């Protein structure tokens, strides 16, 4: 039985449809992702799954219960890491955890017992923490109730690369401990690293679902050759190399050639007398899947 099951889920705000009839199931122990650009409906979906915002239409069960009728009971077993940090910056790290744990009616002694990782920084003001540490404290806070399901909304948005790795490491550890994770992100590398299974969302709809590698195999080639030809437009070059690839995508700043073997394709490009300013051979990513399915890039 799935932890979360949604059928025909819709969320409307007045005239605006944020989520437009989506189906998905999330199972215990897996790490499930919602990948899509800003405005795809990920956060609205998260809010419905975390039983904060009611669905406009469709069926939703979370932990086998109906969010409409048993919201507080469900939330007692969820952990939510919101997109924007919401720590009490005036308080110490430990007081932040106690404050939050009290919302779950946990005794103070029990909260202290559960805090094992903070150690020497427990009595520092949260305001003095770096961005990555604040995020990790928010994650620690959401775990204080030992939730059955941990929901993370854009867990690394706004963090520098080093801080992102700090957060990923923590999430990876949780995943290997068997905690069920639900992650929304518009970073394809994050989705690839952390998610066992994901759905790709665009304009309120699910456009693809599956394991990251399967999605890439299904919707893209093994390798991608990226060519940059300077500022004079890539259109004329695209015509010349068209038959060298399974598919050619023209972006404002570069051409993407979808091929089996990138180096071989690059040699063929050179053989046709073209000299791109730069050329890069890489593996296909979820970004390519998204581009294929929607004709747009994830991060604009």
């Amino acid at each position, binding site marked *: 039985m799935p932890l979360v099951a949604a059928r025909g889920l819709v969320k409307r705000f007045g005239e605006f449809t944020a989520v437009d009839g989506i189906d998905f199931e999330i199972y215990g122990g897996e790490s499930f992702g919602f990948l899509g650009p800003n405005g795809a409906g990920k956060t609205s979906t998260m809010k419905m799954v*975390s039983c904060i915002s009611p669905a406009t239409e469709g069926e939703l069960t979370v932990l086998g219960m109906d969010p409409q009728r048993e919201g507080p009971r469900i939330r007692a077993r969820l952990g939510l890491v919101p997109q924007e940090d*919401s720590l009490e910056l005036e308080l110490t790290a430990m*007081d932040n955890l106690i404050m939050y744990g009290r919302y*779950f*009616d946990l005794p103070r002694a029990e909260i202290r017992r559960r805090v094992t990782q903070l150690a020497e920084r427990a009595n520092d003001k949260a305001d003095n923490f770096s961005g990555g540490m604040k995020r990790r404290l928010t994650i620690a806070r959401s775990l204080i109730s030992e939730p059955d399901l941990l929901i993370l909304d854009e867990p690394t948005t706004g963090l520098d690369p080093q801080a992102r790795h700090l957060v990923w490491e923590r999430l990876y550890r949780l995943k290997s401990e068997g905690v069920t994770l639900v992650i929304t992100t518009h970073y394809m590398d994050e989705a690839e690293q952390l998610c066992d299974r994901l759905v790709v969302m665009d304009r309120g709809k699910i456009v693809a679902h599956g394991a990251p590698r399967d999605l890439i195999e299904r919707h893209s080639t093994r390798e991608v050759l990226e060519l940059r030809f300077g500022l004079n437009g890539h259109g004329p070059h695209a015509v010349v190399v068209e038959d060298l690839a399974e598919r050619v995508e023209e972006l404002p700043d570069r051409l993407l050639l979808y091929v089996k073997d990138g180096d071989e394709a690059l040699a063929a490009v050179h053989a046709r007398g073209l000299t791109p300013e730069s050329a890069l051979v890489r593996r296909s990513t979820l970004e390519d899947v998204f581009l294929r399915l929607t004709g747009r890039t994830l991060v604009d």
Partner: protein
Amino acid sequence: MTTTRDPITARGAAQPTVGWPPWRRALWYHAAFWARTWRGQVLSSFLFPILFLASMGLGVGQLVNNHAGGVDGVPYLDFVAPALLAMNAMQIASNETMWPILASFKWTRSYWTAVSTPVSAKDLVIAKLSWVGIHVAMVGVSFTLVVAMFGALHSPWAVLLPLAGVLTGLAYAAPIAAYTATQENPNSFPVFYRFMIIPMFLFSGGFYPISQLPGWLQSVVQIVPLYHGVALCRTLALGQGTPAATAYHIAFLLALASVGSWLCVRSFRRKLEA
């Protein structure tokens, strides 16, 4: 001990709990914050009335007593002291329900944090208004003691002064909180403060009987909640006033507090549970 296993997650679902309903957990939040800064707050909530009573009673009071022989048959200090409690209640209520509520929605986002736990928007309203009530009650008790020390209480009903303060406070806190929850920024707060709170402070019969005002203004003042709060506190402190008038003051304040609370739950829900 038997552990019940959840059929869906196969995890032990039993959690040790204190056994508090959600709104009390949210109230704990306010109390815990207050406990961190209580010294400064206690000082100001004692000092403010003492300074005011000293200045009004000894300064203005002397003048009034010498020239008019007191007000309504009592010395000026005794006339003004219970009114100060009602004014203080209004002050606390508006201070607690403008910036701090906006901050909890927008800056610290602590309301959003709370509603992702078993606590709901309605619990947050109950907790906030309870907290304003408790805060006013604490100040009310210390205030009543100070007034008693000045020898300005004339009736045993004065023991109910803190409660009258709480009622006045809630008649302000609930509607203002309902309004704040509809705001996206604090731009209107200073205007509200200057053009609503301060005039009410000055014209609600706290410093002089409203019979001193022109007739048209007297009828305007009678729909101001602070007027009823002042009148109620004065009734209790001096043992004046008819039961009918007293019941009317109480009913007026209760009605505002109740309608305000209902609006407040509605606006909190619209914001947090949309």
